[in-house]
């Protein structure tokens, strides 16, 4: 069945959803960035929208609000993640649910910071909320948990920030210091100009907060403030040297367990499942009856994250 998508957010993820929706048999009927929108009930032409954005700095002539007036089935919320009240993303979701539309989130804010509010709105609506893309990009983590059943999964741990992992694994492999590798990562586009979210562990923590919310199945609500978070700025090359001398390495590991959420640099054996290199991500699910499951892959990137968004859309058919 073809669904009509309204996409909010014209960054790497929103842009890729626009490009790839046709491949999944869906149409993007509305597309907005922070200042403009393009609406076409017959489906937008991706290259025309991208050209307009490049040429004029806008995606269309309408204002962003027009998206909500379009005739759509699924709102794809891919605006930048914000903390605290998770606005404006949360209001976007609220509005779509009030109109009994489905919502697919790539934005982590509403699910990490206001999970109970979000679930309450969903309960009042005919629409449902999906957010696979908010946790680990293309890796099917939430759908795996859903298949297993959250009560059968006792913990999730792993590496869910490619930038921090790239930096730590490069520092370990090349014997370079943090500042040097960060600059290299910025040149390669692996780290942003302001890398705070990634290197201070906030991005990873938001993902593990979302996992904790999913695993607790409504019993306990978690937000970023509940997480114990430490980033990688305080991991010098000397620590990686000492770890390597003993067959270990350091990775920024997140944990969502019955004890809560924790993200910190941890010592793990070299060559163990969690010691992924570069921008690779991995999540290890601890199950009650079936041991550990490891799922790894690309945890970020436009087409990768759009793949998770469109998988969520397909689940709504």
């Amino acid at each position, binding site marked *: 069945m073809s669904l009509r998508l309204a996409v909010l957010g014209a960054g790497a993820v929103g842009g890729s959803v626009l490009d790839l929706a046709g491949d999944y048999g869906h149409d993007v009927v509305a597309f907005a960035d922070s200042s403009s929108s393009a609406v076409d009930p017959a489906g937008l032409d991706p290259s025309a929208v991208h050209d307009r954005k490049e040429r004029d700095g806008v995606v269309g002539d309408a204002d962003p609000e027009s998206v909500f007036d379009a005739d759509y089935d699924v709102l794809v919320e891919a605006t930048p993640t914000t903390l605290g009240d998770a606005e404006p993303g949360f209001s976007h979701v609220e509005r779509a649910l009030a109109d009994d539309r489905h919502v697919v989130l790539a934005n982590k804010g509403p699910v990490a910071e206001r999970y109970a509010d979000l679930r309450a709105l969903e309960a009042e609506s005919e629409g449902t909320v999906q957010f696979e893309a908010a946790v680990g990009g293309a890796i099917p983590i939430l759908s795996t948990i859903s298949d297993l059943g959250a009560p059968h999964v006792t913990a999730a741990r792993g590496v869910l920030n490619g930038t921090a992992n790239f930096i730590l694994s490069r520092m370990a492999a090349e014997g370079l210091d943090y500042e040097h590798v960060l600059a290299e990562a910025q040149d390669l586009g692996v780290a942003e100009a302001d890398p705070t979210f990634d290197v201070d562990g906030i991005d990873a923590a938001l993902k593990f907060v979302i996992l904790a919310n999913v695993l607790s199945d409504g019993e306990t609500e978690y937000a970023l403030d509940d997480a114990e978070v430490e980033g990688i700025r*305080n991991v010098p090359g000397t620590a990686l040297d000492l770890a390597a001398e003993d067959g270990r390495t350091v990775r920024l590991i997140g944990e969502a367990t019955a004890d809560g959420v924790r993200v910190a640099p941890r010592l793990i054996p070299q060559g163990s499942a969690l010691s992924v290199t570069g921008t690779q991500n991995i999540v290890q699910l601890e199950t009650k009856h079936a041991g550990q499951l490891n799922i790894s892959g690309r945890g970020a990137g436009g087409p990768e994250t759009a793949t998770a968004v469109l998988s969520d859309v397909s689940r709504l058919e």
Partner: protein
Amino acid sequence: MSAQDLDGGSDAEADGSGEMPKPHTIRLELADEPGQLLAALAPISDNGGNLLSIFHERGNLTPRGHIPVEVDLECPPDRFERIVDALRDAGVNVIRAGAEHFGEEVMVILVGDTVDSDLSDTLHRIESSADATLQDLSLSAREGTDEASSARLRLAVRSGRVDETLAVVRDLAAEKGLHVVEPLAEGSQ
């Protein structure tokens, strides 16, 4: 600091394992004078102890201004008390002695500019407040960079006390402005 528990002897009597040698750890402190270490080791071999290793924390001082030394030795349980008595008779200050059963091992890395200057106190406090004993220690500093120094500690921990030990390390690090890289215990296969 002055707590002197001597549980090795009573352990030996309790388990009565006859002639089978068992490993023991003795923590001493020595004045920083020539010949002190050798003088301290003589009572061990004289009384049937077999030296396994000596960890001489040169450069570190106990609060009394002495050098801490950790001696691992093997001896039949019934000889252990005699060895400790002989050490004390020879005027050696035995801080701790025992056939302790450290069933688990945990490794942590401490990071910070002051990690090496203040290490003796850090190690002493870990050993005195946690059920742990230092097995080995490695330091790393990179000359000519502004990177922080690091110290890798391998601790032998009494079975089931890993969490408590890590909590002690964490608190101590927080107090001293150091960062701790803790091991991930589970799921790291």
